[in-house]
């Protein structure tokens, strides 16, 4: 509502405290000022207290030498690297377990969620059992279960479980051969790229052709063949320019190849399986939210059952699924900070743990760590909101 003073019969402006809009503005300004004053007081008081106690402050410590080792690093790192580098190493380790966790949880979650609705009695019961078991046990206990009860009971390095003298599993982790690319390997990713572009062109052309003539090719299968077949063909044609660095027992441990540490495996398994049980329920509820009339209407148009699911049910279900799915992704990433309980070197463990303790700068380190999780979560939210807007019902 608006008040128009000049419309008054007296032609007089009322005093500002009688004007509702101005009053609201004044109260809001007062609130903002109070919050700002409180924050200023907190910051000023913290600084004064830190100074009075002779505690060093500031972010200068980031360029100091860290001096400690980290077991899993995705970028070059040694004990001579700086604390800024440990921050990066921890961040990448967090993103690794978070990213792979989201991927695995999505795949397991969608599979189990759809299986839960299967007309096959056994499959539906199994999916139901999975959901009820893993959703109702605390995540930390599940991490401990995978780490202490499963991976800790594996044999020692010398008695490793070997799979074809190339893959080894023991209490120290999973050892895989590492591919080493020789010259001439560049052609394989190149053909891969060409195949992807060709597939996109094919799909677009196919859609136009279908709109025009009603005829369609099985573009999905052709694309799949292109994307996998073409690079494979190139690989064979160039004489497989790849050698494998095999893990081999030397001294205390396996050397060479790729090592996947048990801390990562335990955390990744627990996060994926736990979050997947929630995603499964979200998927089930999303599909069930679509009224059965939609299926019947689609069938009345004599669409095959596969296409009913793909063209009618799933696009509508996604609108219901995506918002709660976003929360699950955010939960998974934040829950990855439980890594510190089993010693996986994530951001909380190497930065908010060891770095904090070696430098003693709790406020800076904790603030940086919180800012990182906030940033990751906001970026994921933004992406999911964008995706949600794309699949949202377009009202005409």
């Amino acid at each position, binding site marked *: 509502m608006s008040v128009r003073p000049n419309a008054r019969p007296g032609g007089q402006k009322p005093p500002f405290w009688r004007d509702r809009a101005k009053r609201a503005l004044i109260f809001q300004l007062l609130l903002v000022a109070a919050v700002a004053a409180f924050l200023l007081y*907190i910051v000023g*008081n*913290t600084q*004064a*207290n*830190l100074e*009075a*106690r*002779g*505690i*060093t402050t500031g972010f200068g410590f980031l360029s100091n030498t860290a*001096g*400690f*080792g*980290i*077991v899993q690093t995705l970028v070059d790192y*040694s*004990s*001579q690297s700086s604390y800024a580098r440990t921050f990066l190493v921890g961040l990448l380790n967090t993103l690794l377990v978070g990213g792979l966790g989201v991927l695995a949880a999505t795949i397991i979650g969608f599979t189990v969620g759809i299986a839960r609705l299967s007309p096959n009695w056994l499959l539906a019961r199994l999916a139901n059992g999975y959901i009820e078991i893993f959703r109702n046990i605390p*995540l930390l206990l599940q991490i401990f279960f995978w780490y*202490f009860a499963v991976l*800790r009971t594996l044999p*020692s*390095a010398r008695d490793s479980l070997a799979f074809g003298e190339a893959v080894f599993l023991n*209490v*120290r982790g999973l050892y895989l051969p590492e591919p080493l690319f020789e010259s001439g390997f560049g052609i394989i990713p190149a053909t891969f790229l060409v195949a992807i572009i060709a597939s996109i062109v094919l799909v677009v052309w196919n859609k136009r052709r279908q709109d025009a003539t009603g005829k369609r090719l099985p573009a999905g299968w052709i694309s799949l063949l292109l994307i996998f077949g073409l690079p494979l063909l190139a690989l064979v044609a160039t004489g497989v320019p790849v050698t494998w660095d095999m893990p081999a027992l*030397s*001294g*205390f*441990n396996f*050397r060479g190849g790729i090592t996947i540490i*048990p801390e990562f495996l335990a955390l990744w398994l627990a996060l994926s399986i736990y979050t997947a049980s929630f995603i499964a329920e979200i998927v089930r509820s999303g599909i069930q939210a679509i009224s059965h009339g939609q299926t019947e209407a689609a069938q009345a148009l004599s669409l095959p059952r596969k296409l009913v699911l793909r063209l009618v049910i799933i696009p509508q279900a996604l609108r219901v699924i995506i918002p709660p799915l976003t929360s699950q992704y955010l939960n998974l990433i*934040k*829950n990855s*900070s*439980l890594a*510190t*309980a089993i*010693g996986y*070197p994530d951001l*909380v*463990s*190497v930065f*908010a*743990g*060891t770095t*904090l*303790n*070696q*430098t*003693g700068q*709790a*406020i800076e380190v*904790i603030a940086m760590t919180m800012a990182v999780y906030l940033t990751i979560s906001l970026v994921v939210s933004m992406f999911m909101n964008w995706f949600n807007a794309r699949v949202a019902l377009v009202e005409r």
Partner: protein
Amino acid sequence: MLNKKHWVLLASAGSLALTGMTTAQADTLEDTRSNGAVQCGVSDGLPGFSSPDDQGNWQGLDVDVCRAVAAAVLGDSEAVDYISLNAVERFTALQSGEVDVLSRNTTWTTTRDTTLGLNFTGVSFYDGIGFMINRDLGVGSAKELDGAAICVQSGTTTELNVADYFRANDMQFDPIVFDTSEQTVGGYQAGRCDVLTSDTSQLAALRIQLDNPKGSMILPEIISKEPLGPVVRQGDDTWFNIVKWSLFAMINAEEYGLNSANVDDMLSSEDPNIARILGQGDNYGEAMGLEADWAYNIIKQVGNYGESFDRNVGMDSPLEIERGVNALWTEGGIQYAPPIR
């Protein structure tokens, strides 16, 4: 998700933000008297240094420092509130005032003494880092550890010193880092790592907790200096002096032959050194705000340094650590306290 450790850190950081300016110049002695107990930070369970016994009473060499301070300040060595802290929590807890003395096998280093706003008051135990390894591996020296996986507790100087040692000797290692010493032992026993590393005194304590202590051995190399001692906040010199001289009183008592059994008889001693320690005549506690019998109370209720050492970590204890460098300077060691006068 945050675990308990991070809540403690957050709460401590928050209390730094919210406490008024006045606490910076707080009178810890006055606070302790009105509170009726010394707020003492100890470990999360390290036999010999600070761990609860089967009745839940804290025992150990580090605990005896807390008790000595309580005896000096309050006249009662039992008037201590023990706060169990892990390696990561300890400094923040002291900085924020959650504890007033940190007596928790903490190594004295430049960084900790300066940038953290803390003061070390002395050395209660001279230690060094060693390696424990399974006998079956047939390793006789730390120089043969190239490529080993090593379990280490996070937030300790050990983490840094081990990295230095391997770098200096041009060897590789995988650091397997856990939050608590319990977890490092678990990792070592499960074979997650080949080697367990820590201060040698801790290794001795951890070794007796193993399922098969005889199956593990401690390698002969000591790769670093680890002087362990009590820590207080900067900015309260009276409290700093009290904690410092409580430990010195225990060491001096041993040097002059005073112990918990004979201290009452010694009250009438003609030796001027003993008379000064026991406050017969001049009151050396006055300038610290203490009664004349401050050192008497320590010796009577806690004992001298040698008694505490033998009872907790020495030959009368399961750890059976030799006095070695921790013997008095008069007996070939380097424990040396400035005179009380």
